[in-house]
């Protein structure tokens, strides 16, 4: 079987920007950040206070109490986003399709809150035993496994953990499996719930979290804002989607990966540039076809200028013509879910002909002097778009999408 064209036919998002993909897109278009004080925890002993918390997410709306016993918050996000994506795609399951479908998710840290709870029981409360569901709640694949049980999908199902690139690696592999005929459908994305005391303390110690908000590419940026949520999409071969009359959001056309082989936390120019070039090559795209990039754009002092340099290195003169924005300025940095949330922002930008802005932007930085779409969404019909994810550990993953002219 030759390579097949692959399209996105369903999307689902739970994030600080709302309960579903519709609310997510509405906030992005309005340039309205979901960043504010973290209320899930007592933050009084923390140096930073703000995060992009999914405030409108109410687990009881989605799960029975018995189910919640089994599901950490990060897995709940995966399940709710997957339900929305499958419903949105209008998939009609058959036994054959379930066997020939895949689930590939990304998560950086898994069920950290459940792990923290176990540690508190042991070390703080000095109790001799922990909740026996700690292991199944904590495991990184908990979301993928639960989605499999719920949908009956029984083909390849696994979770990728490559820090902030997890979801892009997951989506890329799912794309390749559909393209190469290994599966007929893939449900793919990522989820993360990083708001636990132990984990936030670890971020505090790294000194990369902003005390105020996330200002990517802005000269006064002071670091990242952590976010939580989940995003999933349904990928199908173009022919199958057309045969069943499915709505097509966009085509996924390329996936590129690389490793910096350089440093655990310092970004490099050449590694990300190679991943961008690899995504273009995989999709048979020329730089001139790229009109928009959803940036990794963490708003750390180091990431943004390095990413700008990488985009210039990979795309040459086209870098000066395209638009690049960081939607992390609104939904925060959701770590292993970031790539999935941003892939959906990218797909919707192509479909709606509107580029979401870089919010909270105040002052141009000469080191980040590309068109960063400051604060205001912009109407622009672009042919192709990239979504960048560059992880700690130097692992880079870039997805390429094409507007569907259906």
């Amino acid at each position: 079987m030759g390579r097949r064209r692959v399209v996105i036919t369903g999307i689902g998002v739970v994030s600080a920007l709302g309960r579903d993909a519709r609310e997510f897109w509405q906030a992005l278009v309005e340039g309205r950040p979901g960043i504010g004080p973290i209320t899930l925890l007592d933050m009084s002993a923390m140096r930073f206070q703000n995060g992009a918390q999914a405030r409108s997410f109410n687990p009881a709306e989605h799960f029975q109490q018995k189910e919640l016993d089994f599901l950490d918050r990060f897995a709940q996000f995966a399940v709710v986003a997957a339900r929305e994506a499958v419903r949105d795609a209008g998939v009609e399951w058959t036994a054959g399709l379930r066997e020939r479908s895949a689930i590939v998710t990304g998560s950086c840290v898994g069920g950290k809150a459940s792990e923290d709870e176990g540690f508190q029981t042991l070390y703080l409360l000095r109790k001799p035993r922990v909740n026996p569901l700690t292991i199944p709640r904590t495991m990184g694949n908990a979301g993928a496994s639960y989605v499999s049980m719920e949908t009956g999908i029984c083909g390849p199902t696994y979770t990728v953990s490559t820090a902030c690139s997890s979801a892009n690696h997951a989506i890329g592999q799912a794309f390749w499996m559909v393209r190469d005929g290994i599966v007929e459908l893939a449900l793919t994305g990522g989820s993360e719930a990083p708001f636990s005391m132990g984990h936030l303390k670890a971020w505090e110690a790294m000194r990369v979290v902003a005390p105020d908000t996330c200002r990517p590419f802005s000269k006064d940026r002071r670091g990242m804002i952590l976010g939580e949520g989940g995003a999933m999409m349904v990928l199908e071969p173009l022919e199958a989607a057309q045969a069943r009359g499915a709505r097509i959001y966009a085509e996924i056309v390329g996936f590129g990966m690389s490793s910096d082989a350089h440093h655990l936390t310092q970004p490099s120019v050449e590694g990300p540039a190679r991943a961008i070039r690899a995504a273009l090559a995989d999709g048979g795209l020329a730089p001139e076809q790229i009109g928009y990039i959803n940036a990794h754009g963490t708003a750390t002092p180091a990431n943004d200028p390095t990413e700008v340099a990488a985009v210039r290195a990979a795309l040459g003169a086209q870098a000066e013509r395209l638009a690049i924005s960081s939607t992390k300025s609104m939904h925060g940095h959701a770590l292993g879910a970031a790539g999935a949330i941003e892939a959906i922002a990218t797909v919707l930008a192509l479909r709606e002909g509107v580029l979401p802005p870089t919010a909270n932007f105040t002052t141009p930085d000469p080191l980040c002097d590309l068109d960063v779409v400051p604060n205001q969404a912009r109407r622009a019909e672009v042919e192709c778009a990239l979504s960048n994810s560059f992880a700690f550990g130097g692992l880079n993953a870039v997805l390429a999408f094409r507007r569907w002219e259906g």
Partner: protein
Amino acid sequence: MSDELIQRIISCIAESQKIPRENITLDSTFEELGIDSLDGVNILFLLENEFNINIPDEGVQGIRGVRQMVEALEKLLSGGANTGAVAQS
């Protein structure tokens, strides 16, 4: 600038970098000592424990050498204006 303070700070840097204390002087730059940003946050962590203080992000971001680090710590420990240092109980 007390000699004891300088020696305690140099000890933390030596511990973080796994290098002999003798290799570090008041005039050493972080670049000379091979200290990158990740090493830097590790040194701040060791200093917080050594002096039992919280060191805020502000005021330490531009530090590029031992002398600057000593000066910043001196200011924090003396409770200098706007340093934001908080003694831990």
